[in-house]
Each structure stands twice: as C-alpha cells, then as structure tokens.
C-alpha cells in the first residue's frame, strides 16, 4: 500500500487553517488582545533600525554620494576596456565641435619653412604631398601599380590630389560618393563609434577610435604607428551619421594632434551599409 497524494484534501486543510486564523485575528482585534498575523491585511513592516539612526539627513545624503563615488571608482577599475571611462576625460565643449570652421586654428602659411606645429609628427605641414611614394600604387588595388611619375599631368588621381589640404577648413564634410572614392584611394579611415559597434561591422581597413572609451589615446598611437599618415594627408572619419557628433569630437582631437586634412563622412556607417559597400567585421582593421 503506497502513499497517495490527495491534493484536494490538502487544499481543504489549508483553507480550514486560514479561515481559523482569520476568525482568530478578528476575535483578538475586537478583544484588544495581542496582534496576530492577518494574512489579508498584513501590517506595514517597521523600518529596520539603522546604525546611524540618529544621524542627521544631510549626513546621510553625504553618505549616499560618498558611497556612489566609491562604487563608481571600484566598478570603473574592474570594468572591461570597452566599458571603462576615464575620470578626467577628454571632452571638448559642444560649441567647439559644432561648426567645422571653428575647428580650424590659424594654420601656418604654405610658404613658411617652419616645422609642423604639432610636436607629434615630424612631417612638416608645408610638404605638398606628405605621404610617401606608394600612394599612386594604392589607387588601383586590382591592377598592377602604375609607375610613379609625379610630374606627369596625366597621372592617376591620388588621395592628396583629390582631397587637398585647405587651410580654410581643416575639417570638412564629404558626401557618400566622396567617401567611397576615398576608400578606393586607400585613405585611412577612423571609426569613431563604440568598439562593440565596430566589431559588428566597419569599413574595411578602418581603425577604431571610440571617443568615449578610456583607451582612445592608445588606439590613436597604434593608428599613427601603423598607418603613419602625414599631417596634411587626408583622413576619413565616420560614426553613425545623422545626429552623431562622435566624428566631430574625434576630428577635434586630431586637430589638437596637428592633423590638418580631416574628412567627415557625414552620413556615416548606416549609409555605407545601405549602399551595399564592402564591410569587415572584428576588432581589428
């Protein structure tokens, strides 16, 4: 004879017990006896006694902000690199990145034989074509590289000839077609979006420089070491287009580093995808 679970009988017992509890509670309330648990109307729990119950509210408010600061510091210390934020980050005021014309500092005159203003680069800004010789060869990746004859008027368009540096506008917007042209001419591109977005898809050969992540400086150094762009050489920058300001923030940063020919692909990566252009994935160019 085995055990048989009778759910109905158990439910009846529970109901009976609850009804008894309820009637006892009513009776005790009317009799003024000690309070018992009323399962339908539970009493509002009392506030847990605090260690600093007697402390004044301003002190407690200060304790909240101190705890928040401590938690923020700890969490940021342990965060993954793409989730880390520098406490003293580089964030220019919005007004300085709104209008590209404001970005242009007094550029050195093209005839002046002074060295580059930025101490980072050794290439002087007066150099008409700062990129070394292989630029014409980059023009047609599928074909054999043409013979570099700089003085020939019929030579193929280069990145520097198509996007010459202009002292009037060191940062300028380029259209979708110009961006593709720059891509074909192997103009180096910088992707200002977050590193997670970059890993999902980016322009082939583009370098990730997320302006809001803590390792922006390191990424820019890596970019300069690998791509070795001249200060006057064109550099493409893009983010998500539309209202995205990250490209302009990054352009501002590059202007501070001495670069003087920055092209902002204003429609950004969504337009690149919409046009069905080649993409690459992963964390590296």
């Amino acid at each position, binding site marked *: 004879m085995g055990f048989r679970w009778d759910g109905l009988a158990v439910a009846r017992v529970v109901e009976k017990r609850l009804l008894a509890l309820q009637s006892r509670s009513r009776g005790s309330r009317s009799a003024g006896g000690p309070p018992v648990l009323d399962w339908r109307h539970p009493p509002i729990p009392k506030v847990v006694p605090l260690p600093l119950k007697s402390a004044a509210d301003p002190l407690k408010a200060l*304790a*909240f902000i101190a705890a928040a600061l401590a938690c*923020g510091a700890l969490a940021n210390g342990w965060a993954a690199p793409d989730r880390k*934020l520098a406490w*003293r980050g580089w964030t220019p*005021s*919005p007004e300085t990145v709104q209008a590209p014309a404001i970005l242009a500092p007094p550029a050195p005159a093209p005839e002046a034989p002074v060295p580059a203003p930025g101490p980072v680069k050794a290439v002087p800004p007066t150099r008409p074509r700062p990129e070394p010789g292989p630029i014409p060869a980059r023009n047609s990746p599928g074909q054999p590289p043409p013979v570099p004859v700089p003085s020939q008027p019929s030579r193929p368009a280069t990145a520097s000839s198509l996007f010459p540096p202009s002292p009037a506008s060191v940062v300028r917007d380029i259209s979708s077609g110009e961006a593709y042209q720059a891509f074909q001419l192997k103009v180096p591109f910088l992707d200002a979006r977050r590193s997670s977005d970059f890993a999902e898809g980016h322009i082939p050969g583009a370098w990730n420089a997320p302006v809001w992540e803590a390792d922006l400086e390191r990424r820019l150094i890596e970019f300069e070491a690998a791509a070795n762009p001249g200060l006057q050489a064109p550099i493409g920058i893009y983010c998500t287009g539309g209202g*995205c300001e990250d490209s302009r923030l990054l352009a501002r940063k590059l202007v501070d580093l001495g670069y003087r020919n920055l092209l902002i692909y204003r429609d950004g990566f969504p337009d690149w995808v919409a046009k069905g252009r080649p993409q690459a994935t992963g964390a590296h160019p």
Partner: protein
Amino acid sequence: MTRGWLIHPWLTVRAQIVLGAVFVAAALPKIADPPGFAEAIWNYQLAPPWLVHPAALTLPWLELLCGLALCLGLWTRAAAAWVSTLLLVFLAALSLNLARHHPVDCGCFQTQATARSADDRLADMRWAILRDLGLLILGGQILLATRRKPQP
C-alpha cells in the same frame, strides 16, 4: 483629512517601492555602460566638460543606492531627497533642450543612441518630462510623509 490621506503610510510605502524600482531599473544600464552614459550627458550640451565623466561614473550608482534604499525603507528621507533632486535636474535638462528645440536621446533607461528622427526624439522628451513630473510627485509625497515634527 486630505492631508492625512496624502501622508498615509500605506501610500508612502507604495510610493517608495515604485520610485525605488524605477531608479534601480534606470541605473543598471548606465552602470553597465559608463561611456555611453557620458555621451548621453554630453549630448545635452549643458554640463561643463570637466563634469561629464565624473557625473557619468557617479550618478548611476547614486541612483542605484537611493533606489535600493527607498525599496528597503532605509534612510528613506535622505534617499528621497536625492531622488527628487536628480529628478529636478533631469527635468531642467530636458525642458531646456526642448525649449531650444535640441532633440536628444533621453538616456534615462538606455545609453545607446537610437537612430530616430528629431521629431520622434522631441516627442519622447515631452513624455519623459511628464514621467519625471509624476515621479517627482511621488518623491514629494515621501518627503512630506517622512518629515520630522519639530520637538516641543
């Protein structure tokens, strides 16, 4: 009579739980992604540049701690004061940007920028202002109910 109903403990406990839960829910995505929240703050174009990063690292934790305190009934008055202050700041930021017709992503419950039109963003900002006003009323109720009576 009305005043007694307004500061009734039954109402206060529920206001604490609702307000606390909203702030905990709002804090978690920001804690998970401080760079995204910093960008959201910067997009408002109100905070001075030196304040953007410290605010992005501290504010979400302040929201979380105050939200938890409200839910658990600990240091209720101080937590409600902070929450109400934060709500006033959010309201001012949203209203100023709405007034100057500058659409921003709220950054209230998510930090990723969304691809939406300016009109959609402005409409969302109006709803966010209404929501913050409602939450501010809850904060005011808690502050009113937990007000200490002056000692005779």
